[in-house]
């Protein structure tokens, strides 16, 4: 069935409340039975500055932006200029603005679309405590066919902290906006979805990662504030104490990762979350977790780099450092969620793998997943059986780093926990012998390198290593947040009878050559899609795998997201006549 969907952008400036309006709209749409997601675009200003809430509402779950927007609500016309490149429009797009607002008398940038005037400022003034953003919300509801009542039903949840007066004023404004919207065109795109029976959640990628961490057993987090990972830390700070855990705000990222390793050495599953600059600071100590074989999970919510880059915007450009940033030969795990919902599963899986394999796992989320809020079906609760291998009793001499033995030949040796009598050893970042004593002997180095590599290479990762969908001899291979638009592009092509395979990697390290060979079986043409200027994913694929297919690359740096029609265009000549 063709996806019924509608894209709306709300732009504003200087505390005009677009994010609150967007949240209300999304939650109200969810109440009405729709799905959708909202991403945020903002400058670096802490308060004020332009901001846009970008929303897509749909009849089925989707995490892809559309090719263009159907409706723009420019609460303040000045604010639209900044987002002209981020909000592609068509001739039939509606732009609702306020001729009396803004410093330049309602002047909009030169973009396609039908401009309609709505005196939001004036209407708001007629209501005590009234605000133009709530007038806008009422008007949007009218235009898209969203019942007014569904908005009122979410006031309590979203506006509770603002008090009853604000709720009352907002209700009056929404009503005024709804009435004023009677004169505006109607976009009949969404029929009320009949999915009210399915359990659905409203969750951000950052919250989803936090939930995955707690489901996986994380009970200690140490971290330093950084955009765009901060909300994840805030969620964990409030949530961990409920399960007997704790979040420590550390003095810097060097402390964060080392506190995590210390807690994990003590037997408590531990995680830190950061973004690119913080990951760069942590790399030396991630190597310590690898060498000393202490489980640790590092969640990187990527943003544009290098250096401070664009802190508030998304990019898939930390792949290189995550894969190759550690000095020495340091085999470790690198994973990436393929959607907002999947942040739950992938983070939980990362905890499971780090604990089972006694090593470091880096999870690459990004700003576009982390800070976006989506209406999703409840992510299934998966329980993994394998946990950290802890010895139950001790022989006369305990060999912490035994290369084979009671842990079998898996390379995973039982790890004693402080408090266990007879299990005393020194965890060491120096190369060591099987007992953990420092060693500069070549044979100890070889044996330990081989052990640390074997345990992660020979583990049975099962089907989770990648999302594989579709059939056919053409495939699109991608990872992380780029998966959403690729998935929608392929779904559109499928509607037209073109079957193309999707390969989205969840496990980036260790490499899975056999599984990849099976996934690529019969593939003649391959399109690589990634959000990195220097082709990091493409180079990784070329180095790690035999692609054996005619290969094209579609790469672009952040922050502009991929749109489905762009991906379809990249497949030109490989698929039949397609309408985009």
């Amino acid at each position, binding site marked *: 069935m063709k996806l019924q969907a509608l894209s709306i952008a709300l732009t504003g400036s200087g505390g005009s409340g677009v994010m609150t309006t967007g949240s209300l709209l999304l939650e109200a749409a969810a109440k009405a039975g729709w799905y959708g997601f909202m991403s945020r675009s903002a400058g670096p200003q802490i308060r004020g500055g332009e901001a846009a809430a970008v929303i897509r509402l749909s009849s089925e779950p989707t995490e892809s932006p559309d090719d263009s927007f159907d409706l723009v609500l420019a609460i303040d016309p000045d604010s639209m200029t900044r987002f002209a490149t981020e909000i592609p429009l068509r001739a039939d797009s509606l732009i609702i603005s306020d001729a009396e607002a803004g410093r330049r008398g309602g002047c909009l940038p030169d973009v396609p679309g039908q401009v309609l005037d709505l005196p939001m400022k004036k209407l708001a003034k007629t209501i005590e405590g009234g605000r133009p953003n709530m007038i806008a919300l009422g008007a949007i509801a009218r235009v898209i066919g969203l019942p007014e009542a569904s908005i009122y039903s979410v006031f309590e949840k979203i506006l509770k902290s603002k008090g009853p007066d604000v709720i009352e004023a907002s209700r009056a404004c929404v009503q005024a906006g709804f009435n004023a919207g009677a004169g505006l065109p109607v976009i009949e795109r969404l029929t009320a979805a009949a999915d009210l029976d399915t359990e659905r*959640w409203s969750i951000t990628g950052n919250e989803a990662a936090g939930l995955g961490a707690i489901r996986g057993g994380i*009970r200690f987090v140490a971290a330093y504030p950084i955009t765009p990972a901060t909300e994840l830390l805030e969620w964990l700070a409030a949530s961990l104490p409920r*399960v007997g855990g704790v979040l420590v705000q550390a*003095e810097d990222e060097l402390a964060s990762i080392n506190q995590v*390793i*210390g807690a994990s050495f003590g037997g408590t599953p531990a995680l830190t979350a950061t973004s690119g600059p913080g990951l760069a600071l942590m790399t030396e*100590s991630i190597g310590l977790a690898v060498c*000393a074989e202490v489980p640790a999970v590092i969640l990187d919510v990527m943003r544009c780099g290098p250096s401070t880059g664009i802190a508030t915007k998304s990019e898939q450009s930390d792949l290189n450092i995550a894969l190759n940033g550690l000095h020495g030969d340091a085999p470790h795990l690198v994973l990436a969620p393929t959607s907002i919902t999947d942040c739950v599963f992938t983070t939980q899986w990362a905890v499971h793998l780090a604990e089972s394999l006694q090593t470091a796992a880096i999870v690459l989320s990004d700003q576009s997943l982390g800070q976006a809020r989506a209406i999703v079906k409840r992510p299934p609760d998966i329980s993994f059986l394998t946990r950290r291998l802890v010895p139950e009793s001790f022989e006369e001499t305990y060999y912490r780093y035994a290369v084979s033995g009671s842990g079998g030949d898996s390379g995973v040796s039982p790890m004693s926990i402080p408090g*266990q009598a007879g299990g005393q050893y020194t965890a060491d970042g120096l190369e060591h012998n099987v007992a953990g004593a420092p060693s500069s002997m070549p044979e100890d180095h070889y044996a330990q390198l081989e052990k640390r590599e074997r345990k992660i290479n020979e583990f049975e990762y099962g089907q989770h290593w990648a999302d594989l969908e579709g059939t056919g001899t053409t495939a699109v291979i991608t990872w992380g947040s780029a998966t959403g638009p690729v998935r929608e592009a392929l779904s559109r092509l499928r509607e037209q009878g073109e079957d193309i395979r999707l390969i989205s990697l969840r496990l980036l390290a260790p490499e899975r050559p056999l599984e990849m060979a099976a996934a690529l079986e019969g593939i003649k043409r391959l399109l690589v899609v990634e959000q990195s200027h220097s082709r990091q994913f493409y180079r990784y694929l070329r180095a790690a795998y035999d692609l054996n297919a005619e290969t094209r690359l579609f790469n672009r740096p952040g922050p502009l997201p991929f749109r489905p029609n762009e991906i379809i265009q990249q497949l030109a000549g490989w698929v039949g006549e397609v309408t985009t």
Partner: protein
Amino acid sequence: MNDETLNVQLQPKQYKSAVKPVWCPGCGDFGVLGSITKALAGLKVQPENAAIISGIGCSSRMPTYLSTYGFHGVHGRALALATGLKTARPDLTVIATGGDGDGFSIGGNHFLHTCRRNPDMTYIVMDNQVYGMTKGQASPTTEPNWQRGKLTPAGTGINPFQPLAIALASGANFIARCSSSDSNGTARILMQAIRHPGFSMVQVLSPCVTFRPEQREWKNMLIAAPVAMQATSDPAEAARLLLTDEGIYTGILYVGERPVYQPKLESSIDDIAEFEEEFRI
């Protein structure tokens, strides 16, 4: 420290591992190793309930030479490792060990913030005013006119770091200075440091006989602080002493009563499914 003690006191040597130290003959750190084992024996700590945490440097090799749990981490991060361990496992006796370069140069930020945070653990810094493992460069506590460091042949020209005054200003709860040559005296102070709730900072002047042979004289220069000045709980009095004694007084020089950093680790819900409530439409 850990409350669960042994019924029978072990011998100090039972806290030593079988690994032979890499230290040069005559190194002050041998004395400190002995003091640590005496203190643990004196406190009847069960070896499996203690963890010795370190970074990198000669003195940071300490954990390997003990029969407790240990962690020999990366350069400068011992206090962060130890804070994570102690916070997650408040039942353990956690001791961080290391040198002046590890603690006050590359690890300086963690030193400030661990004093400030005040977790219940002990930090033993074996200060020899030189980087020994990299063969003799000036450290943060080296005097400005020491000219035998090859990276600073004209001397550093900069004032040495004053660890104990900085520990005091940063909020450390227990501050002491010892001499590695007085193994029993150091052990007695370590016992008090380990018992004291909160972050205990113990500077042990521990000569580097290879790169600073003149430090052999320390045993004749260091003197016990006058009794009236010991164990003051007045930070102003302690500051005056620490800033004016030229680093020669030994003993417990400050004892504070700040609250210990230890988040409660008690679950308030029965089922993590309760988290789902906040997301449900």
